[in-house]
């Protein structure tokens, strides 16, 4: 469904990606692992249409997306992808439920409908109690679950998560992972999970290991 062929990307002299090819099937959970600086985040951003690769192509359902115009690409990200960052990166001025409703509002759903759907998602991720709290008042784990709700609320095809548990302790990370994967599975979304923690990678169906911007050969089953 989502496929990348021969992706390369450099920043100045640093070669972050060097001919990476990956394929992600619908509903699949794939972990991208490797030491820091290996190009994991860069790969994720290229797949998610946030960065454009210098060479190679990214194809979603048979359509090339790396060559789309900025407006089209933005709309695609908004409708087909969800992103979770390490620190949540929610809007601190909004309440939790408003944060989750935001993507729906930007997809031009009505306010009532968006808020109701957002509240439902918070419930599903067991943070319904925090709905009206500002982000600053939430714990790291609650924040991450709100971020997961925000990524999933639009019913995306693929969810991209970059070190989603990086700032959490073991139990908090576990709760976020089970919540995220459970919700993604229920919605049929594929998950691309960047992590350098093997215990988090163990949640995935399979693993892609990067080293120095390339897929480590002989590792993948």
């Amino acid at each position: 469904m989502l496929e990348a062929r021969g992706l390369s990307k450099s920043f100045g002299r640093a070669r972050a990606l060097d001919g990476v090819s990956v394929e992600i099937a619908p509903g699949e959970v794939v972990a991208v692992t490797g030491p820091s600086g290996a190009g994991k985040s860069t790969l994720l951003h290229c797949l998610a249409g946030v960065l454009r690769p210098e060479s190679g192509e990214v194809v979603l359902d048979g359509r090339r997306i790396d060559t789309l115009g900025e407006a089209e690409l933005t709309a695609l990200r908004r409708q087909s992808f969800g992103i979770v960052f390490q620190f949540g990166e929610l809007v601190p001025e909004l309440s939790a439920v408003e944060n989750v409703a935001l993507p729906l509002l930007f997809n031009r759903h009505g306010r009532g409908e968006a808020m109701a759907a957002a509240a439902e998602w918070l419930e599903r991720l067991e943070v319904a109690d925090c709905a009206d709290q500002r982000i600053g008042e939430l714990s790291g784990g609650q924040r991450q679950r709100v971020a997961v709700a925000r990524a999933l609320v639009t019913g995306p095809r693929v969810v991209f998560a970059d070190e989603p548990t990086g700032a959490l302790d073991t139990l908090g990370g576990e709760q976020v992972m089970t919540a995220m994967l459970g919700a993604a599975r229920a919605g049929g979304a594929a998950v691309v999970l960047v992590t350098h923690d093997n215990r988090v990678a163990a949640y995935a169906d399979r693993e892609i290991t990067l080293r120095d911007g390339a897929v480590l050969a002989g590792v993948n089953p």
Partner: protein
Amino acid sequence: MITVLRMLNRGRSRPERVRAWLVGAGAGVAAFLVCTAVSLADFRDEGGSLTGLALALLALPVAGLVHQANRLATATRERRLAALRLAGAAPGDVRRLGALEGGWLALTGSLAGSVVYALTHLPGPLAPVPFVVVLMTAGGVVSGARAGRDVIASPLGVTRRPRVRGPRVRDLLLALTGVALLVAGLTLKGGFPIGGKYGTAVAMAAGMVLLLFGLTMAATWLIRACAARIGRRARSPETLLAARLVESDPRAWARALSVVGLTVFFGAGSGAQQAGTGYWHAHALIDVALLLAMLTSAAALVVHQAEELIDLRRSFAALAAAGVPERSLGRVLVRQAAIAALPVCAVAAAAGVGVVVFSVLDIYQARWLVWALTRAVAMTGIGVLTAMLVALAARPLLRGALRLETLRAGR
């Protein structure tokens, strides 16, 4: 303390140098304007003193700008100041650092401004010059000390937004004292009990500053109340975001808008007066001064916008990555400006008309009201438009803030 300041300055970035320039230049321009105003203030001639008043009015937004720039300094240096706190500096130390820097920049700037004044007004009076320089430096010190308040709150560098209070009696008293000083200056003219003509100028300047403070407090409360209301009803995500952003930091908006509001107030007031009386020449001059004041206050808005974008960049960059178009985020900025500026300008305009009409209620004719109200509406429009144009102009800054690199730097 001086050593630490030197250390901080050695490592400063381009924006910080620009900011230091802004503070110095602002202090210089303000000093020049105030000196010129004092020299022009000739209380035997109504026109001359009105011109002086107009010039003094012009110095206000410039002073506001200086304060904004001092605040920006703490925003850009937040991390390093926080590191200072963690390294054991007491809140007082950090405040003293800010005061020292603000005072130093204001001193050099106002000295430069005075030199320019002395050179261009060779025959003019030089007596008020040292007085103005001292005043400006003191202002720089106070502004520098106050600017770091947010950072000082926590060594962890999480700027704690000060809680917004409701309106207080003290704010009202400040504003009333300001009005009283202004009125006293205008009625006593050259015959001020202390210091004669210069005493009048100082009293009026002080009155204006007090009025501004009081109005800012009132505006903070007004802006928050309006934003909360709009946020509750917002249907579009842009309006929701804009209202919530304004609601969470109404004080910064009030500060940035205080001069805009004052300009609208005076504009509407002079409009109400023009309708009935003469002095066309002086009134035209005041209008020009008001226009210039509006332009300068726009600069304060620009600084505020830049400061705000520093705060917003992480969450906005994440929104952009999640597929929110840059256009929408630009719209958020513009709506924010409208949400904050509309209540302030409307109230200011109404107050301006009200003050004039009530002071001469016995002779005011109903047909003059048409012109007065038209002027008031026009002034409101101009005020709001200025704020919105500044927000529009900030779009290139927004583009810079949305770059993905923003999210790479760790917390």
